[in-house]
């Protein structure tokens, strides 16, 4: 017998945890699923099992509070459970969810879905970006905060947005020499326009200011309008080159400087992890202010597909607080759709939560305007720079494909194999799109070059589970 639920929440970061809590509190039979061994997602990722924080008893972090509430709630918790496919149920009454993991069922069934799969660092390609020693901000922060590993002795941190400062400050706290921090954007009068919105988030501003002052006190060179333009070394990073960027984000010739480092941490904003939403057939929109392709959503966070909701960063980058609110909104909407609460109750809830949500959305828009992904970074690429890491497809090969008539990501993929590897194009979609837009020139836009398609299995799974699946 396949376990069946009224609602499956996929992802247990702040969005998924809140969604599951809201739905369960309304009496919805809920399963919450995450590939990690414990709930938390990116911001609230707990220490690994076996590690212990030594701090005063009774002191609880926000993430611990949420996961304690989740543990006490009447719902099914499936951890170490990676969702590799979601299929319409044959009976037409919901979804069949395929799981990979040693101790979880292979399939569960759910009538409604809330997808809360989070985000990942936006990959920006530059010569040497595939060398061991080049890590994303996310990778560095997880190693530092969660694993307590300092991966390098001396690093350069380059990118744009709040995670750049966070990564640099944590590296410095771990005893790593931070040879420099490059923030690709310059701050201008644009910032002033958003001052009222930004100032209302004083805690987060304070956090950023704390990171910056820590770095400046340590004498770390902090440059705005600069970026890493190359990493090089024999088999691993030994040197990085940085350069000043022009207004479009292209490096200014003659401004290059060498930095001796054994690591480069690169974080150019975040990209919604929209794979599952796309796989089930939710219509996507290109939202540059929200990190790229993301599922279209209505005001209750429903997608274009009946019965499927998306909450948190997987539907557009807006931070942890926003994810929590969206989780509550989607969980409540699902409870309403299942008839567990009255229209009046849903309305009352909505009136309470929407002002805070609107403020988080304004804050996210302000950050997106202050820290856009500079389009000129595409000019860092050399003919032999790999764009697709999995299939080792270079800029030169992609340009040849364009010369042969390719105008979309799908066509580039057919001609070059870019995007066909294990990562299903998550790492090269951005770099290949940037090249397509440059090569095709006027008239080309992300809406015309498109996105990579997503097929099950989302992650490679043991052959056994696929075969068994065909039998059933």
């Amino acid at each position: 017998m396949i376990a069946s639920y009224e609602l499956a929440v996929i992802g247990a970061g702040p969005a998924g945890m809140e969604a599951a809590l809201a739905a369960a509190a309304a009496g919805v039979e809920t399963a919450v699923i995450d590939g990690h061994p414990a709930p938390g997602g990116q911001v609230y990722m707990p220490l690994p099992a076996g590690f212990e924080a030594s701090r005063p008893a009774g002191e609880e972090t926000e993430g611990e509070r949420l996961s304690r509430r989740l543990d006490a709630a009447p719902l099914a918790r499936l951890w170490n459970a990676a969702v590799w496919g979601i299929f319409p149920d044959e009976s037409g009454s919901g979804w069949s969810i395929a799981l990979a993991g040693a101790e979880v069922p292979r399939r569960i069934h759910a009538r409604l879905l809330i997808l809360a799969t989070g985000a990942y660092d936006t990959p920006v390609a530059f010569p040497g970006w595939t060398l061991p020693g080049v890590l994303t901000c996310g990778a560095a922060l997880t190693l530092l905060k969660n694993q307590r590993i300092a991966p390098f002795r001396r690093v350069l941190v380059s990118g744009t947005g709040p995670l750049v400062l966070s990564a640099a400050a944590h590296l410095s706290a771990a005893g790593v020499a931070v040879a420099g921090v490059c923030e690709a954007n310059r701050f201008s009068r644009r910032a002033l326009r958003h001052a009222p919105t930004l100032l209302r988030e004083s805690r987060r501003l304070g956090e950023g200011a704390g990171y910056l002052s820590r770095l400046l006190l340590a004498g770390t060179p902090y440059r705005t309008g600069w970026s890493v333009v190359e990493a090089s070394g024999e088999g691993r990073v030994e040197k990085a080159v940085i350069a000043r960027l022009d207004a479009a984000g292209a490096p200014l010739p003659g401004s290059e400087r060498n930095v001796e480092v054994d690591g480069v941490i690169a974080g150019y904003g975040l990209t919604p992890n929209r794979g599952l939403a796309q796989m089930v057939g939710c219509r996507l929109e290109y939202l540059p202010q929200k990190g790229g392709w993301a599922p279209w959503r209505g005001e209750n966070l429903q997608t274009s597909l009946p019965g499927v909701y998306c909450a948190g960063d997987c539907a557009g980058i807006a931070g942890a607080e926003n994810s929590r609110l969206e989780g509550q909104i989607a969980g409540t909407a699902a409870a309403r759709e299942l008839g567990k609460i009255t229209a009046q109750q849903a309305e009352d809830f909505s009136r309470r939560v929407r002002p805070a949500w609107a403020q988080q959305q304004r804050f996210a828009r302000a950050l997106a305007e202050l820290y856009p992904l500079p389009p000129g970074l595409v000019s860092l690429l050399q003919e032999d720079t790999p764009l697709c890491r999995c299939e080792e497809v270079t800029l030169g090969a992609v340009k040849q494909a364009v010369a042969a008539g390719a105008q979309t990501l799908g066509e580039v993929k057919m001609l070059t194999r870019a995007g066909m590897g294990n990562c299903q194009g998550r790492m090269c979609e951005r770099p290949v799109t940037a090249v397509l837009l440059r090569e095709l020139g006027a008239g080309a836009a992300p809406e015309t070059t498109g996105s990579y398609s997503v097929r099950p299995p989302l992650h490679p799974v043991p052959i056994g589970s696929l075969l068994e699946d065909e039998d059933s």
Partner: protein
Amino acid sequence: MRIKVTSKLLPEVRRGKPLRVAVNGKWVDAYAGETVAAVLLAEGIQVFRHTARARAPRGVYCGMGLCYECLVTVDEVRAVRACVTPVADGMRIEIDAEPAL
């Protein structure tokens, strides 16, 4: 390197139980809860594998199981993502660290 200094940003943490894993046959120290990637990086190993075509070196990139750059062999299972796989006592990890085949 395992972080020894503590501060407000990275307060003190006790690691899990000590255990041993073999990296290409050589036994090294590890702690319960660490990932394969963390243990390799703590040993100063950055190069986890070489690519099929260009034999280009690769290691950790995304650190969250999405890029498939950190693939190693664990207890004879090939293509395991080091960044999301916890170590276990007696685990045998094989990396492909030499540029020449």
